[in-house]
């Protein structure tokens, strides 16, 4: 290498944050220059990240490590440990980040507050990369919160719109509640291992003898479940999912980058990263199987009845994230310290495909909404004449989402079915297969509602501008072909112990088409098609009506959140009555505290 790896990593870490500081200062240069400067900067970041890929995805590769002394007083170091998983997530964040910024040059043209937009996007990319490449759990949490902050700020990007501001607050508070799990899990692990380093934790645990292992499990077991809570918030698993559909108030580019391709994957990432530790915990994989399966199913039902294009995509994202959580649940403790981490690989493989096709779908949806001016699919109709190129590109995304053979979503979904089938997990398998049926149904519904039929529009609709089309085309190629990376991809994961074997491309194709899971896929697609075809006759019975009614109100989860907020408010109102403003009453505080302290001291046995 002619450039030192350390230098590249330092640039990757620093460049986005420097951009965040600099971009707002360039306000005077005009929005257009800022946009293209950001394209350049994010392109550079992506380039640096991609430069590291060959070093990692090679036979017998070593992780790339670096260390920065951050807070020496308390011994907090910013350790960097880049392995296959880390570089892959970083590549997704920076690569899709770059494409989204490129797309934004046209899409966001003329919006107010663009310097803020681009600065936040750069901050987000930087924080996301740092989140995945660091080895220190505390720093993971630090950046975990920063991406949450970016998400909040970008959802509320249109600050003058009260609903956008409200959605931002909802997203921030809900994910914050999930984060409680993560931080407590991290600190519990620290109690057991006296280190924040993920690699040290894994090494200690795998090398421990039986006694030490059992001692450590006392900490690992609760930590595992706290980590799941953390992932639930960020990766929008039920019941902490309701912020994601509301987050669609954000500009579509933000939805594509943050709420489809990267940030929502942070939860999946942390579970995958920690799977080598938590796989030993009894019930941890099973919890993930059911959590993921149920989330996938419920979100798919909501997607089937959703009239709003972006919210539909959001529900579909939740559903697909459910698949990924499910896939991590396929990890297996074989006993005697042996583990099967194939599930981690499967989930990341699906994550790769999903990031690409979901970004494509969101950006297509953005282009459509941009030109039609509504998010309601029933008001779109018949766009295939006006936006033919967009239509074909979106069709690729839809087919990939639905899991139609040879499109990218198919391969990973098939792998998930195969995994569940192999371990004979019948109920979870049923959950994901039914989800597959519904996925095909809502994909068809979305496509036909938007592009087929007859639309009556007052104003003319234009085809997507070229800059945006280029981005869409790149992503469409990805949605067609990202699965081909399997050989390199699985090799990298195998080398770093996160997968069982390398899938050679030829074998992989033939295996997939001959496995029993392929039958399930075909079945799911067939049933999905039937479901869509007979949608009108299926709609009129009681149960369907009930599902439609409930699904459109988010199955009451929003009401649940509301009730909690109202409950807190009522407690506070009761409390407020004590602040009467009466001067005598202030002294009752003294008497009260006297009693409290007396009781506690008596309890301690002082008197």
């Amino acid at each position: 290498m002619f450039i030192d790896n350390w230098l590249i990593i330092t640039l990757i870490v620093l460049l986005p944050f420097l951009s965040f500081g600099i971009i707002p200062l360039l306000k005077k240069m005009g929005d257009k220059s800022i946009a293209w400067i950001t394209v350049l900067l994010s392109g550079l970041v992506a380039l640096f990240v991609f430069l590291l890929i060959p070093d990692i995805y090679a036979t017998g590769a070593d992780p790339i490590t670096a260390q920065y002394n951050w807070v020496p007083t308390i011994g907090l170091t910013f350790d960097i440990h880049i392995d296959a998983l880390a570089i892959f997530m970083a590549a997704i964040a920076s690569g899709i980040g770059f494409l989204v910024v490129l797309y934004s040059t046209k899409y966001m043209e003329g919006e107010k507050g663009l310097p803020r937009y681009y600065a936040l996007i750069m901050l987000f990319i930087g924080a996301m990369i740092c989140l995945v490449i660091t080895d220190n759990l505390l720093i993971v949490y630090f950046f975990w919160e920063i991406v949450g902050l970016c998400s909040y700020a970008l959802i509320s990007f249109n600050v003058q719109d009260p609903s956008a501001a409200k959605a931002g607050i909802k997203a921030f508070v809900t994910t914050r509640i999930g984060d409680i799990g993560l931080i407590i899990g991290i600190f519990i692990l620290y109690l057991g291992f006296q280190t924040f380093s993920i690699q040290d934790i894994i090494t200690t645990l795998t090398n421990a003898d039986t006694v030490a292992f059992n001692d450590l499990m006392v900490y690992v077991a609760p930590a595992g479940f706290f980590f799941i809570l953390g992932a639930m918030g960020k990766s929008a698993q039920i019941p902490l999912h309701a912020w994601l559909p509301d987050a669609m108030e954000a500009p579509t580019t933000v939805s594509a980058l943050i709420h489809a391709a990267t940030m929502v994957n942070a939860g999946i990432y942390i579970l995958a990263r920690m799977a080598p530790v938590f796989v030993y915990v009894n019930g941890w994989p099973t919890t993930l199987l059911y959590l993921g399966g149920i989330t996938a199913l419920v979100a798919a039902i909501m997607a089937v009845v959703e009239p709003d294009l972006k919210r539909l995509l959001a529900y579909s994202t939740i559903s697909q994230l459910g698949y990924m959580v499910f896939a991590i649940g396929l990890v297996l403790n074989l006993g005697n310290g042996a583990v099967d981490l194939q599930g981690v690989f499967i989930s990341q493989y699906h994550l790769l495909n999903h990031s690409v096709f979901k970004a494509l779908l969101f950006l297509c949806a953005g282009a459509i909404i941009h030109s039609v001016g509504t998010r309601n699919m029933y008001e779109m109709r018949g766009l295939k004449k006006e936006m033919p190129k967009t239509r074909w590109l979106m069709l690729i995304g839809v087919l990939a989402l639905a899991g139609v053979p040879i499109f990218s979503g198919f391969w990973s979904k098939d792998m998930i079915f195969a995994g569940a089938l192999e371990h004979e997990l019948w109920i979870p398998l049923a959950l994901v297969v039914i989800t597959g049926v519904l996925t095909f149904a809502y994909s068809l519904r979305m496509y036909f509602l938007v592009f087929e039929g007859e639309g009556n529009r007052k104003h003319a609709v234009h085809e997507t501008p070229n800059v945006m089309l280029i981005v869409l085309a790149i992503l469409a190629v990805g949605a067609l072909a990202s699965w081909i990376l399997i050989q390199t991809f699985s090799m990298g994961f195998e080398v770093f112990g996160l997968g069982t074997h390398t899938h050679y491309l030829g074998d992989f194709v033939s295996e997939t088409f001959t496995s029993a899971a392929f039958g399930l896929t075909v079945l799911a697609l067939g049933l999905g098609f039937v479901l869509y075809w007979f949608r009108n006759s299926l709609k009129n019975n009681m149960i369907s009506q009930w599902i439609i009614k409930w699904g459109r109100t988010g199955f009451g989860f929003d009401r649940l959140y509301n009730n909690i907020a109202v409950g807190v408010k009522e407690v506070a109102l009761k409390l407020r009555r004590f602040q009467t403003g009466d001067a005598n009453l202030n002294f009752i505080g003294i008497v009260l505290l006297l009693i409290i302290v007396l009781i506690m001291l008596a309890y301690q046995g002082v008197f």
Partner: protein
Amino acid sequence: MAIEIVQTNLLFGFILLGMGLYCVLSKKNLIKMVIGLEIMSKGAILAFVGFGGLSVQAYVVVAIAIEAIVAAVALSIIVNVWKHTKSLDITDMSRLRG
């Protein structure tokens, strides 16, 4: 001997403190409340005095001086209250609440 004095003084100190507390809890007149406060601090000073010794004298004198200043400040604020409302009844003075 010392123990007895200490206990009597502490006892009376507590009684004064309690009386003062009762006063500020129940009286509606600002001046009476300030008197209550003064009784409370006299209780504290009495508790101090009981322990005897040279340093205590110094402490007590300083403490009394501080009490006087606090009383002066309290009364000066009460003068301003009077200027605003022409009343010293605290039931009229609960505009800040919640």
